[in-house]
């Protein structure tokens, strides 16, 4: 506090610190009520914490059911203090929650939990990301054939790729369906899953991809050039896969990479 009479900015900073759990005596000193200031501040603190907890509960429902309500509330309490939201658009709040769970000692035994959270974050993007425009195939027609290999795509914000060593899609479905029998039947050692999560009309679609398709998609979604993605895939069907991605609206726009013209022959789908 730099002045005797705190200015608006100082008052708001002090209240923010208090609400986020760093009790700030400055704010108490600015209040004028006869009732205990701490009681009054706690109403705002509780409302804030409840609203943010509810937002994370909505954004990570399977994680919540896997660990139980009490444990979830305790975990997100720590997360909220560490990573409070930067915007009032709470639909996508919790971007760092999977990484937080990865380092959260009490859930280390649930080895698949951070990956379930990553899947839920991808589902959240599919549910809430802006519509934006999808890249139309016709927009690519003017590209010189010699430049096809330099094409780099920007994924649509509602589409995500999720890799996990565990069958997190099966876990997610069983948990949200409250199907304990299906959950118990899941074999954690059944092998890795490579998932494409996207928005379809009226629903979310999660598709398992084989290794070859995954490598190609992973390269494209990472913004690598078409030539590089084709080299990674090394499969004659890759051009057809690109056509499927374009038809499904998985990309938002394209650029031409500045890298040297690739030697690997690349053709856009006809």
């Amino acid at each position, binding site marked *: 506090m730099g002045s005797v009479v705190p200015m608006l*900015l100082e008052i*708001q900073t002090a209240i923010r610190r208090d*609400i986020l759990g760093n009790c700030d005596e400055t704010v108490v000193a600015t*209040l004028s009520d006869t009732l205990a*200031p701490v009681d009054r501040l706690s109403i705002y603190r509780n*409302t804030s914490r409840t609203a943010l907890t509810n937002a994370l509960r909505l954004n990570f429902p399977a994680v919540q059911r896997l660990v139980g309500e009490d444990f979830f509330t305790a975990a997100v309490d720590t997360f909220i203090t560490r990573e409070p*939201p930067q915007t009032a658009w709470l639909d996508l709040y919790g971007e760092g929650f999977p990484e937080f769970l990865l380092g959260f000692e009490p859930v280390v035994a649930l080895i698949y939990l951070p990956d379930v959270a990553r899947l839920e974050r991808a589902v959240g993007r599919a*549910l*809430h990301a802006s519509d934006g425009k999808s890249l139309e195939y016709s927009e690519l027609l003017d590209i010189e054939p010699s430049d096809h290999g330099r094409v780099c795509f920007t994924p649509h914000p509602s589409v995500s790729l999720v890799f996990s060593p565990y069958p997190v899609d099966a876990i997610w479905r069983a948990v949200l369906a409250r199907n304990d029998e299906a959950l118990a039947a899941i074999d954690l050692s059944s092998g890795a899953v490579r998932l494409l999560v996207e928005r379809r009309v009226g629903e979310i679609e999660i598709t398992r991809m084989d290794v070859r398709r995954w490598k190609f998609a992973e390269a494209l979604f990472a913004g690598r050039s078409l030539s590089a993605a084709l080299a990674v895939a090394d499969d004659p069907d890759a051009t057809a896969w690109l056509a499927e991605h374009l038809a499904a609206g998985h990309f938002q726009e394209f650029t031409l990479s500045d890298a040297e013209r690739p030697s690997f022959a690349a053709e856009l789908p006809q």
Partner: protein
Amino acid sequence: MRFQHHQAALDTRADVAWMEVHTENYMGGGSPIRNLEAIRRDIPISLHGVGLSLGSAEGLDQAHLDRIRQIAEHIEPDLMSEHIAWSVSGGTYLADLLPLPMTEEALAVVCRHADQVQSTLRRKILVENPSTYMQFRQSTIPEWEFMAAVAARTGCGILCDVNNIYVSAKNHGWDPLAYLAALPPDAIGEIHLAGHSARQLADGATLRIDDHGSRVIGEVWLLYEAALRRFGPVPTLIEWDQNVPPLDVLIDEARHADALIDVASDGVCRADAA
């Protein structure tokens, strides 16, 4: 209206004059905004924001304001509103409508931001009086004068939350009728009603808390009648977004408000449910 009401609203073409939604619930793409667009074809929509933080000393979140502008362009709402409060500090959204010290500095900040919002949206907005649970030593302006000054300086309208007036008046020892009397009738564009709860504090005092989780209490209905007498028949909304009841319960509350409007006027204006 919340997401669980979308299908009922689409299926039944609910017999209401208009509906209000939280702007922040429609910021993304996908089905929520498409459902709202479909409902909008039959029912006028009011966009009620909770996250713009008009009272933040550090300025408005331009990205958030841009998202609000995009929704407004899609939905073409009949009304748009925000709060005399703040919720952003240090780039962090605190997810509550926090109270402002009622000072000339805060008044200037709110007016500057209301001007910015109205300029961006190219339309008039309404600003709502909050429920508050604490006051600041620095405050020099009564809240009712602060509200009137924002309207006078920026040309914005006032969303008069009658339950919030009652809650704050009880919490701080104000006269709720004097509060109503200080608001300029011409600026009142909408009225909110809601239920609230009462909590006993450790020192035995009672604090009333606006929680939108129950029916409107009798004393607030009486204050609402006084507001209608002063402001005339103003579009009225029942806020109920905790322990959300079925749509028919919301509409039943709205019917009661309608009846009071009919008494206060020729019934040219109707009340509806959130």
